[in-house]
């Protein structure tokens, strides 16, 4: 077997009350891409934090280039040649690309003044290497998310990183950006970089990685070459049990139109109309920035429409704000749990009931017994894993947070449910449960809109899929017609194919 450039062996890390890592191991090989897989809470992030020196391991060893190492802070690991690109980028918006790349390590003249010329020219060289078409003097805020990620990579390269760890790098990227990221990864590994790739998206793992390492409950489970493994086997290793069919589609048989959107415009949305039946899942596909979230927020009243109408069961709705939409049975579950979905510092109970308080109170006084009952009911129904209702929601896993977000909306017994990226940042096991919940709502006759960038999920669950491009609907496919290629073609704005 080839020699690893970086070896983490039997790492144990205990936090008060939790054993986050319990014999986790990982080998990284020069010139190879290693996938690090595991459900949320399996210990991937903790392991990476131990590696980069954010946490100190209780026991276990780290060997880098055949030397035992121990980093007491991230700066040390960076200087040694290990860089982590976090899911949430550590960049400063009002600074230029070059300033971001050299933040804290600015080249200086002998007088201690920043040597701008060297800095910009070095940064430009790095950017050229990564095929970024911006000058190093461009402000970071002018870049797309994908380009910002390239800046993070440039930063890693500027420190001569030999191991680069990427944590969910494609979560916010469009398909095009993902493709160019993959090209960069291939180039980096060809130059001898060892890469650790963390992602929930199995497709990507098979596209880009050479080997995989699976963690479960903080333990090392398996390491294998990607060629020797298939998707089912990988999921089985991750969850420790077999998952039956990943996308449990159920036929819908109702015909009554529930929601009908007519000529909706505003905030970049241009004259969109569509109908939604009871018990139907309507998928929305499209690239980032195509206006999917904006459309949903227009329907929900979170953004003001310039034109158009929304009808529910044949009656035109007057929606001026979110409360109006909620009161009339339209709920929206945000794509961005942290940003505008949940109150992360507050309890499960308070999060779940916040929309329903008007129903749970009289003259402003909250009936706390009733509230507790309802919350308990949903915790059970949705199988939400929380020690108690007063647990701070930020401490739950992504999957459980998402379930609370959905429960919060469903507590209002809505007629139309809009799910925006319902499984972003959710691990495989919880994903399955969320799909089953969505199907349950469907069976109950709820009309469901699902916005998703995860194509297999969209294809697997939707009855119909609409594709958006630049604020308009560029195509509509039935479940039978839709394929990944067609969706993508419509999303990038190619003229619609003949058969649809």
């Amino acid at each position, binding site marked *: 077997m080839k020699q690893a450039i970086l070896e983490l062996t039997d790492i144990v890390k205990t936090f008060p009350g939790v054993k986050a890592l319990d014999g986790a191991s990982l080998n990284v090989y020069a010139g190879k891409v290693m996938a690090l897989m595991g459900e949320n809470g399996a210990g991937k992030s903790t392991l990476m934090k131990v590696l980069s020196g954010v946490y100190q391991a209780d026991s276990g060893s780290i060997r880098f280039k055949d030397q035992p190492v121990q980093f007491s802070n991230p700066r040390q690991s960076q200087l040694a040649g290990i860089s982590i690109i976090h899911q949430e980028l550590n960049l400063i918006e009002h600074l230029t690309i070059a300033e971001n790349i050299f933040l804290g390590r600015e080249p200086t003249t002998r007088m201690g003044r920043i040597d701008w010329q060297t800095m910009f020219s070095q940064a430009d060289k790095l950017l050229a290497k990564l095929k970024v078409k911006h000058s190093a003097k461009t402000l970071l805020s002018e870049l797309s998310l994908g380009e910002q990620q390239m800046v993070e990579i440039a930063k890693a390269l500027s420190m001569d990183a030999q191991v680069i760890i990427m944590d969910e790098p494609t979560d916010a990227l469009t398909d095009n950006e993902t493709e160019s990221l993959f090209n960069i990864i291939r180039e980096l590994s060809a130059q001898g970089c060892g890469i650790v790739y963390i992602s929930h998206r199995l497709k990507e793992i098979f596209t880009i990685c050479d080997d995989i390492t699976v963690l479960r409950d903080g333990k090392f489970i398996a390491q294998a070459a990607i060629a020797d493994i298939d998707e089912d086997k990988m999921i089985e290793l991750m969850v420790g049990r077999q998952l039956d069919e990943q996308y449990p589609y159920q036929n819908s048989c109702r015909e009554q139109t529930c929601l009908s959107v007519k000529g909706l415009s505003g905030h970049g949305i241009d004259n969109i109309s569509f109908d939604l039946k009871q018990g139907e899942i309507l998928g929305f596909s499209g690239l980032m920035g195509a206006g999917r979230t904006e459309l949903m927020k227009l329907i929900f009243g979170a953004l003001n429409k310039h034109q158009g109408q929304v009808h529910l069961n044949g009656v035109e709705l007057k929606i001026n704000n*979110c409360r109006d939409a909620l009161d009339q049975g339209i709920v929206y579950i945000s794509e961005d749990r942290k940003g505008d979905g949940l109150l992360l510092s507050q309890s499960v109970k308070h999060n779940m009931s916040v929309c329903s308080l008007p129903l749970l109170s009289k003259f402003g006084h909250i009936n706390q017994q009733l509230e507790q009952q309802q919350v308990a009911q949903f915790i059970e129904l949705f199988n939400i894993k929380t020690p108690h209702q007063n647990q701070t929601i930020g401490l739950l896993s992504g999957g459980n947070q998402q379930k609370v977000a959905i429960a919060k909306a469903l507590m209002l017994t809505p007629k139309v449910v809009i799910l925006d990226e319902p499984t972003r940042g959710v691990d495989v096991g919880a994903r399955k449960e969320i799909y089953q919940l969505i199907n349950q709502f469907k069976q109950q006759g709820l009309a469901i809109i699902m916005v998703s960038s995860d194509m297999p999920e969209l294809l697997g669950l939707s009855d119909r899929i609409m594709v958006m491009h630049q604020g308009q609907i560029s195509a509509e496919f039935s479940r039978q017609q839709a394929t990944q290629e067609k969706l993508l073609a419509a999303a990038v704005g190619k003229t619609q194919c003949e058969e649809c």
Partner: protein
Amino acid sequence: MNTQTPVASTTTNNKRISQWLIEQKSLIALLLLIVVVSLINPNFFSVDNLLNILRQTSVNAIIAVGMTLVILTAGIDLSVGSVLALCGALAASLIGMEVPILVAIPTALLAGATLGAISGIIIAKGKVQAFIATLVTMTLLRGVTMVYTDGRPVSTGFTDVADQFAWFGTGSALGIPIPVWLMVIVFAAIWYLLNHTRFGRYIYAIGGNESAARLSGINVDRVKIGVYALCGTLAALAAIIVTSRLSSAQPTAGMGYELDAIAAVVLGGTSLAGGRGRITGTLIGALIIGFLNNALNLLDVSSYYQMIVKASVILLAVMIDNKQK
């Protein structure tokens, strides 16, 4: 609770006790302060002195309650001192004109509510940062007070109405001073508001994540305006106590009160980032400041040093709090 097994609940009970102790550290600090000072100076622990401290604390405590609400929404209200001065001047001149107290006092409170609401509207509708908006109203209202009073104290006069009015600051019921009763009532009411009403829940939600609150159907602007109006009302109530006690309104009254109130809130463990904190914490915070002032007086510490001690205590408390997070 029903998701727990019995075994798990005993261990979580232990955990909860230690958690509770940590959360109550400001209370423990307060008790410690009382014990230490009463050992040094036996006069400290007399009923008279304790009631005296409570009465002195009441004005800051009542303002700090309003400040807590504002800070829970991730805002700040620097204008409370100026609102106090203007409402005090208004109350004093109404009493001076022998307007019955049942009209004069509600008028002063309503004025406080209106002035607070104006700050709230500037913040919510005008999208001005709370710090800036209330810095403006602070300066503006101080100016209005100066113009209104011509820079001179306003006496409540020597009428029957003035005597009735004086009761609020100097009277007592069941042996307890009226300002202390008012403080207790205000705390109880706001405790109920925060823990048992929709409005209270919305205050926490807005401070926790404003855009999530908006998407959850909360009328964020209305709640914010309401909170600033409440804060103004409580500043007006404090004004009535101060004015009543002195039988006159000083145009410079309430200067620096906003900082004492903020100190009490912060000592009570409420996060300036909003969304987290308790009203009981604010009560304890206000009491700590009150007891500390009194103790330093009894111990003959000069008022110059008192400021330094006070500042050090607040800094220490906040740093301990940060460490735990």
